[in-house]
């Protein structure tokens, strides 16, 4: 902490919030709100005279509200920066602090929040985690029974700098507990609250047990656990040390804590798996080892930073194995528990890793980004002709489209991430995507459906998830029908309705429209656009009377190879169940409807010529198939 304050190249801005992040890799514009402290940092010397003079006491968050602080305060004596703060919500404006500060004149009641703009090349997000509040778990009585406390409260009780100067006492009577229980997995590995393992709590329970044992060797300490997880270096040995020190480990998740209302003694009822029966033990005090949860403002930060969240609410990395530090947004990196529960060694390591990932960019004079971006044909954009539209701007998750009525929309290339959502949504076929142009994708569709299209299952898949799911199906040798023909675009948002119409016009047997699950989308809200369109298409195809299952929407992650194989096999079964003659009749019935809806084929520049060329390939394929 002090090193950071001392380092001349680090500007520590405490009591400051990030309001807005705009721009792109190498060129972020960040707006910060430096909240008013009402104490001038350039004058305050941290002497504490203001706090001594202040007559107002409020609970201190830093002490888990177990101890008070003044309205003029620092959260702890080693605060960095050492600048006092006046809590205006608590202040009664008696101005005693002003008198106490005297000639220093550091206290300034006229201070206001300051808005600061910074130009930034790369961002490391290290916003940490929050603590699960066990109050809703009524079976443990937290909040009702004074001697049931959380792990963080225990932390401040046994800390020599804490509320009781390191004396662990029972809140009900200030007596020192002789018999204490620690319950693990409170709010984690619990499907009612958080299904995940909180990562560090086993070790944390062992640490606190050992610490308490060191303070009072006679203390009787039991740890209730589901499994003890000690997978890092030196951790299992640490666990051994605790067992040798006489700490009891009881395998079983407690069902209930009850209390004697007079003595405030606690009774834990739990299964003891080793004994194979239900046991009940009495304790003076119980510590609930609560789950790590995302920060309360994690959703807000996620929208400020434009980064997605994984299930559970943590920030989502680009790839869990290959790029665990990168966010899906170029130039934004994650460090520590904001990406998922992590202990100190892992957080420190990830801090260094994030710095190293960021410095690749920060040491470069320029940075290269993929050119698979969207491009507007200005002469096709109706806005240029004075018509109001702006659909592309609304679709873009990155604010990469400049739309002003009366002027053709323009893509801000460096902000464009290349999802192709605007291409899919533009009702006037005025946008295309480099490397996934309409001509290129239509050419693939036409060749994949060249021979016996009615037998084919054409699968549209996003690059990041469903394509990965299909890969995993193969890698795992989950076999599925070889009638599947896969097609890759960057995002389900790019899967234009016209592409689907064209596939049915060509006589496709079935079509799979697949992308990532909404929370996994690499383009923030790309999947949402894709899903809305798929729902519209589904309704329309139902109205047109196509057999159920011939158009199917599925969200398949890169981890769901089994699902990919299952979906294709189910689609094959659907096709098999329709008599050939009926299927062919249905396909023929649908064709004129599709022709009516299709605009891309004749309108998009170059597509018509391109399709003439593709037909040479298709004819060659057909002639080969006949000669077989």
């Amino acid at each position: 902490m002090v090193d950071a304050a001392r380092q001349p190249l680090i500007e520590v801005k405490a009591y400051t919030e990030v309001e807005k992040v705009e721009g792109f890799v190498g060129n972020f514009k960040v707006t910060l709100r430096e909240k008013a402290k009402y104490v001038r940092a350039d004058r305050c010397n941290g002497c504490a005279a203001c706090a001594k003079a202040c007559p107002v006491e409020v609970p201190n968050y830093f002490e888990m509200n177990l101890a008070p602080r003044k309205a003029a305060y620092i959260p702890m004596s080693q605060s960095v920066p050492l600048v006092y703060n006046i809590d205006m919500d608590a202040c009664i404006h008696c101005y005693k602090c002003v008198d106490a500060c005297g000639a220093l004149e550091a206290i300034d009641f006229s201070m206001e929040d300051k808005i600061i703009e910074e130009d930034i090349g790369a961002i490391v997000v290290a916003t940490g985690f929050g603590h699960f509040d066990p109050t809703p778990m009524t079976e443990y009585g937290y909040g009702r029974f004074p001697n049931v406390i959380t792990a963080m409260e225990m932390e401040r009780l046994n800390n020599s700098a804490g509320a009781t100067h390191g004396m662990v006492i029972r809140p009900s009577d200030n007596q020192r507990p002789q018999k204490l229980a620690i319950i693990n997995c409170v709010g984690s590995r619990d499907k009612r609250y958080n299904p995940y393992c909180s990562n560090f709590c086993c070790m944390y329970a062992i640490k606190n047990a050992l610490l308490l044992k060191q303070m009072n060797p006679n203390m009787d300490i039991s740890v209730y656990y589901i499994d003890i997880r000690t997978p890092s270096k030196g951790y299992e040995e640490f666990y051994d040390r605790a067992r040798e020190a006489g700490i009891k480990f009881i395998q079983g998740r407690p069902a209930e804590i009850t209390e004697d209302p007079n003595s405030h003694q606690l009774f834990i009822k739990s299964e003891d798996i080793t004994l194979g029966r239900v046991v009940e033990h009495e304790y003076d005090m119980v510590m609930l080892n609560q789950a790590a949860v995302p920060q309360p403002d994690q959703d807000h930060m996620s929208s400020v930073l434009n980064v997605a969240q994984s299930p559970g609410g943590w920030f989502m990395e680009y790839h869990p194995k290959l790029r665990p530090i990168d966010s899906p947004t170029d130039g934004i990196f994650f460090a520590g528990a904001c990406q998922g529960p992590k202990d100190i060694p892992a957080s420190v390591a990830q801090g260094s890793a994030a710095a190293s990932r960021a410095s690749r960019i920060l040491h470069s004079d320029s940075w290269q980004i993929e050119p698979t971006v969207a491009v507007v044909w200005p002469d096709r954009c109706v806005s240029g002709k004075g018509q109001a539209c702006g659909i592309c701007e609304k679709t873009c998750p990155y604010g990469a489209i400049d739309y002003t009525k009366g002027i053709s929309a323009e893509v801000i290339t460096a902000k464009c991430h290349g999802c192709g959502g605007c291409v899919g949504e533009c009702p006037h076929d005025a946008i295309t995507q480099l490397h996934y142009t309409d001509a290129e994708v239509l050419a693939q569709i036409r060749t994949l459906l060249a021979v016996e299209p009615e037998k084919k299952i054409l699968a549209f898949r996003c690059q990041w998830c469903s394509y990965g799911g299909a890969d995993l199906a193969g890698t795992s040798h989950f076999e599925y029908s070889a009638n599947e023909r896969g097609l890759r675009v960057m995002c389900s948002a790019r899967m234009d309705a016209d592409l689907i119409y064209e596939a049915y016009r060509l006589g496709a047997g079935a079509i799979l429209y697949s992308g990532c699950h909404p929370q996994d989308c690499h383009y923030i809200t790309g999947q949402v656009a894709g899903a809305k369109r798929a729902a519209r298409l589904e309704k329309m195809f139902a109205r047109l009377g196509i057999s159920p299952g011939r158009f199917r929407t599925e969200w398949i992650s890169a981890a769901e190879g089994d699902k990919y194989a299952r979906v294709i096999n189910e689609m094959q079964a659907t096709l098999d169940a329709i008599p050939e003659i009926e299927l062919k009749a249905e396909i023929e019935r649908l064709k004129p409807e599709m022709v009516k809806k299709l605009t891309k084929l004749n309108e998009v520049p170059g597509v018509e010529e391109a399709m003439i060329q593709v037909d040479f390939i298709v004819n060659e394929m057909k002639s080969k198939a006949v000669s077989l």
Partner: protein
Amino acid sequence: MSEEVNETKYVGAMPDDEPRIGVYVCHCGSNIAGVIPCDKVVDFAGELPGVVHAAETMYACADSGQRLIKEDIKKYGLNRVVVSACSVRMHEPTFRACVAEAGLNPFLMEMANIREQCTWAHGHDPEGALEKAKDLTAAAVAKASFLTPLDMISVPVTKKALVIGGGVAGINAALDLAEQKIPVVLVEKQPTIGGVMAQLNKTFPTMDCSI
């Protein structure tokens, strides 16, 4: 927005050169060739319009495979390359770099995934897998016919970092960056940095002080 970053303009829907496509069908040892006869895919691809040369290779990603592609680009005047092999997630960067070394724009290479998404998934149906491998290769050839050269987009870099959160991870990231002479703004919403770590007593497994 600087001028430098907004330079990409679409060059047109159709490429201005006549495609001369080379197709490389990888055996991947027995991973592909153990299920389908790769020569049949080569014979099929070799006759597709636009394809001037098609060949088999034991391992397209190996040095020898890449050398073959690079030599053929020169020998046959190829201006597009299709590699029918594994997943783009596996080797797209490899083959982009390979064609670039032979002087082609890296975006003039297209892959057909005939391993993960074909032979590995259809071992029970070798005939179906062969037809699928042909179709996937043809689709890659068709797409390749319309590929246009693309340049990576270059953007300037502001040499300053923002670290959001002054806990143990953020502090460490800020220190590492500053030690590399990169200016850092370290933002913390509480009045002090330190995060949860500063609230802890001793820390496992060494039981040292947290601050």
